């Protein structure tokens, strides 16, 4: 099997799965009915992405595991999502900021992955890109509204940015797995993705009258399986049923 491709797919799929789960926590708690439905739609988009990415990861691994096995039967240290996506929802500004910082990364990534030399990766990227473009539009517009809104919404949005900024560097983490896949034309150069991310983030945050944090301190070893305490709680809730009733179906 292609060990590198498997590792990469797990990172990609876990990002989608965990942020999808976080968004699903908003179900029934959205600030207005319309936004509640939007957030739940996005949660389903992400869980759908996770399903196709993890399904393919299972095939690449070749050990007979499917998407459900990978989602529900792995332990915390086997998850490879970035710490950004497991951060708690906080207030609406924090959720939208987390979403915006992530969508701004995912859009150029999926755009580039549509040209992957691996056909299955290209097909998954093609399908996910359409959803991602809409997610980014939605989260950007909220950041601009909230940042350039009232005194309170501005403050909360700036606080969200200051809280989450330390987790953004990890999105551009690169190791020998990435380098090998890049050489094989399966994934793009991460530095190009970072350039585009910075451009989007600068444009939107400027329009939102927000200030980029100057603190260069960054944190995050999620790609190595070292998570914040948040992930354990997420998995406890997400995996409970399969752990308590192995193989349960409905």
């Amino acid at each position, binding site marked *: 099997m292609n060990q590198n491709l498997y590792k990469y797919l797990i990172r990609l799929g876990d990002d989608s799965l965990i942020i999808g789960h976080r968004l699903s926590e908003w179900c029934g708690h959205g600030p*207005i*009915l*319309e*936004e509640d*439905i*939007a957030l739940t*739609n996005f949660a389903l988009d992400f869980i759908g992405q996770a399903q196709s990415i993890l399904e393919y990861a299972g095939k690449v691994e070749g050990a007979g595991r499917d998407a459900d096995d990978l989602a529900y039967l792995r332990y915390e240290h086997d998850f490879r999502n970035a710490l950004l996506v497991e951060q708690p929802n906080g207030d609406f500004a924090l959720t939208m900021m987390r979403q915006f910082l992530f969508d701004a990364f995912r859009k150029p990534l999926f755009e580039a992955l549509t040209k992957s030399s691996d056909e299955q990766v290209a097909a998954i990227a093609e399908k996910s890109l359409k959803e991602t473009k*809409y997610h980014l*539009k*939605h989260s950007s*517009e909220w950041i601009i*509204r909230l940042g350039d809104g009232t005194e309170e919404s501005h403050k909360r949005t700036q606080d969200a940015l200051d809280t989450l900024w330390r987790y953004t560097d990890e999105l551009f983490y690169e190791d020998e797995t990435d380098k090998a896949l890049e050489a094989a034309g399966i994934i793009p150069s991460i530095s190009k993705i970072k350039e585009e991310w910075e451009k989007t983030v600068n444009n939107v945050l400027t329009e939102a009258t927000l200030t980029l944090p100057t603190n260069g301190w960054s944190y995050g070893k999620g790609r190595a399986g070292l998570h914040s305490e948040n992930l354990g709680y997420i998995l406890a809730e997400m995996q409970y049923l399969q752990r308590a009733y192995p193989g349960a179906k409905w």
Partner: protein
Amino acid sequence: MSENANWPLWEVFISSKAGMSHKHAGSLRAADAKMAIENARDVYTRRSEGTSIWVVKTNEVFASDPNDADAFFDPANTKAYRHPTFYVIPDGVKNM
């Protein structure tokens, strides 16, 4: 929830296919037209109902008075000759 009441109400019209008329789908609240269109996308087209969305502020819609219904609509009742049912529609014509 009082702050929600400050957001205007919008009426949503969805066209299911290019070229078909926009039909009333329901209403929602949004701060402005841009948000209304996005909310309409999320609320009313999530099961592939549409290819085009119109929104209009509810208070920009003017309606006929139900008290005038007799004068408005009853005179049309006995005029069967106004219905185009005396023609045979060719097989090739769709959407009628």
